[in-house]
């Protein structure tokens, strides 16, 4: 792929091998579209992982992080602050729509030709012309303007249609987000999301805290996949530092990440049942999730925020005396899995509410750059643990779970099978735990540089970009979370289905808005 770009564009682009993925390709504003077009034509699995905006003084850098079936590259381009305009790439790849909206909101880059411009993460009464991620904006000086009286709700012109507003406070949502669903009778014709209710400005806050403080701040992006967030940040910083973590630490990290996945999947499998009104199974799943929470507490000292990851290793060793307890707990969980499988396979209620609901085709999953169980449920085999093994995953024996039907049922069953795979991984890691130190002492300040880190969180690929300017605080931290990449798939699959299927379909994404908004 990189050879192809080199031969097509020659001297017009600068290629820096080994930076930000396999290579960083610097192209002028406008030419980046042609580079992307070439990549899309050459490989059908090409998609957008994230778009990072950076304040670089007089200019704003716009980095397009692109994945293909075998390499990961970054296309760098830039716009000036006086004229921050570039052309949209949504016409080339649909999955870029949300990423562009976010960069436009936080850095003020104008993407010309975007189909639905407007506020995306910031509130409607946000002052004009202030972009929080620009360096000259001080967090405490922002004054919100009062909300206009003619607030939002635009009724559909066609009187036949009815607009139903779900959220921000709604029994079906654990988190405050708003979805305006337009229905014709009972059939959904349009879904308009409004996210940003959980936007806490973590990316900006990270720029004013030290690296060690940021580990804990990043962990608090999400209370469910917290170890993954901490590891994403730590992994990127370790790449800038060019350190190799001791093998024992890598194994302990794998154990923490998989315990995280176990409790997250059990939580979702239960929550999905609650959404379709099957509360008994919800209670069963949550009962069996508690022993896993106890294991997290046993290995890290805390039930929810494990705070185990640190730059240079892990903060806590695993005692040999704890290993039998881990193994028996996992064995007990494994023994219960056939019961749950049988519920998901044979229970008529579940079949009626989940089979053929929210079908996402493989081609759509690729076009929208879906990740994680959503993509794998549609037969699109992406799993960073297999594609680009990080930590000690290259040594772990496990299967990549792929279902092909693409409906809600398939997405839930991907998670069901992954529970078993996670148990296998933890058992292997505990049995083959290398001896040696579990932490390195590293300097508190980080040399100038930039790095990306990708990992497979329970909900899909999690992407971190960290840029250091040589001080003890990072210059920019960008997080692309899996739910952010998966929401477009819901907007597509909900259309044409019954309004009653919206909750079951939606929860099958395992949505997490505290991740999405940051």
């Amino acid at each position: 792929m990189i050879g192809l770009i080199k031969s097509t564009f020659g001297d017009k682009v600068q290629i820096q091998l080994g930076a930000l993925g396999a290579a960083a390709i610097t192209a002028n504003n406008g030419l980046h579209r042609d580079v992307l077009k070439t990549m899309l034509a050459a490989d059908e699995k090409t998609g957008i992982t994230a778009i990072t905006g950076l304040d670089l003084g007089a200019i704003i850098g716009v980095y397009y992080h692109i994945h293909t079936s075998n390499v990961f590259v970054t296309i760098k381009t830039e716009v000036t602050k006086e004229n921050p305009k570039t052309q949209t790439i949504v016409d080339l790849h649909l999955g870029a729509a949300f990423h562009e909206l976010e960069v436009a909101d936080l850095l003020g880059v104008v993407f010309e030709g975007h189909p639905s411009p407007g506020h995306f993460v910031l509130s409607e009464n946000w002052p004009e012309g202030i972009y929080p991620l620009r360096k000259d904006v001080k967090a405490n000086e922002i004054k919100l303007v009062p909300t206009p009286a003619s607030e939002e709700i635009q009724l559909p012109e066609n009187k036949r249609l009815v607009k139903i507003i779900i959220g921000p406070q709604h029994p079906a949502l654990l988190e405050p987000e708003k979805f305006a669903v337009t229905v014709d009778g009972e059939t959904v014709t349009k879904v308009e999301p409004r996210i940003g209710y959980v936007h806490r400005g973590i990316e900006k806050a990270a720029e004013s805290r030290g690296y060690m403080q940021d580990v804990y701040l990043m962990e608090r992006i999400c209370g469910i996949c917290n170890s993954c967030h901490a590891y994403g940040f730590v992994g990127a910083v370790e790449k800038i530092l060019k350190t190799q973590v001791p093998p024992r630490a890598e194994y302990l990290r794998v154990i923490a990440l998989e315990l995280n996945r176990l409790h997250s999947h059990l939580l979702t499998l239960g929550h999905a049942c609650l959404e379709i009104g099957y509360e008994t199974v919800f209670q069963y799943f949550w009962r069996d999730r508690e022993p896993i929470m106890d294991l997290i507490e046993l290995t890290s000292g805390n039930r929810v925020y494990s705070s185990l990851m640190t730059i240079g290793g892990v903060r806590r060793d695993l005692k040999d005396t704890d290993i039998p307890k881990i193994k028996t707990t996992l064995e007990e969980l494994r023994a219960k899995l056939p019961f749950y499988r049988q519920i998901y396979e044979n229970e008529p209620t579940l079949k009626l509410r989940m089979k053929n609901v929210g079908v996402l085709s493989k081609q759509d999953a690729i076009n929208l750059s879906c990740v994680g169980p959503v993509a794998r449920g549609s037969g699109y085999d992406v799993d960073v643990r297999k594609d680009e093994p990080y930590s000690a995953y290259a040594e772990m024996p496990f299967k990549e779970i792929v279902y092909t039907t693409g409906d809600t049922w398939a997405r839930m069953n991907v998670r069901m099978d992954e529970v078993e795979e996670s148990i296998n991984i933890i058992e292997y890691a505990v049995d083959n735990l290398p001896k040696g130190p579990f932490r390195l002492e590293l300097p508190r300040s980080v040399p100038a540089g930039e790095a990306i880190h990708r990992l497979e969180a329970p909900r899909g690929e999690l992407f971190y970009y960290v840029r250091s300017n040589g001080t003890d605080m990072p210059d920019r931290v960008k997080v692309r979370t899996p739910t952010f990449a998966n929401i477009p798939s819901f907007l597509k699959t909900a259309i044409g289905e019954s309004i009653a299927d919206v909750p079951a379909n939606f929860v099958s994404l395992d949505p997490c808005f505290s991740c999405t908004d940051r």
Partner: protein
Amino acid sequence: MTDTKTWARVKSPWVLHFNSGACNGCDIEIVALLTPKYDVERFGVKLEPSPRHADVLLVTGCVTQQCAERLKAIYEQMPQPKFVVAIGACACSGGVFEGNYNVVGGVDKVIPVTAYIPGCPPRPEAILDGVVKLLNALNPPKPKKQPKQAKAPEVAKPEAAVAQAAQGIVEEEKQVAK
């Protein structure tokens, strides 16, 4: 009659949960409270989806700009008497997000709060303890041969227990560091 009302309130508080910009940590712990291991329903506590039927509002999160208006609206929709419990460090004071550009910080900046349950996130036991203490404060044990108490005593915070636990963790860490 007052006694009967208090009895009814204490025996079946319906709670409404509102996430005002939390990270899901506290929210999941609240849901965990309702499931078999902790089973808060044995105290008559029931999760209620509508603010108009709720007695107690459980708020988590650091209150983002977008949520502040909504939180106020929900509080105003609740019938009297109403109680607000701020769960987690963010809801108590803004936590790690204090000072960020989109964060108001602390539930008590928007609506009055009855009880604070600190922790990041507080353990289910701590939330349970806080709820039980709130209920006891509504129905204080009556002292004999004394006039009725005019005011409900201040709700004790389970801070002490949490602080003790935190101390334990710190000490453990020190040992590990050694």
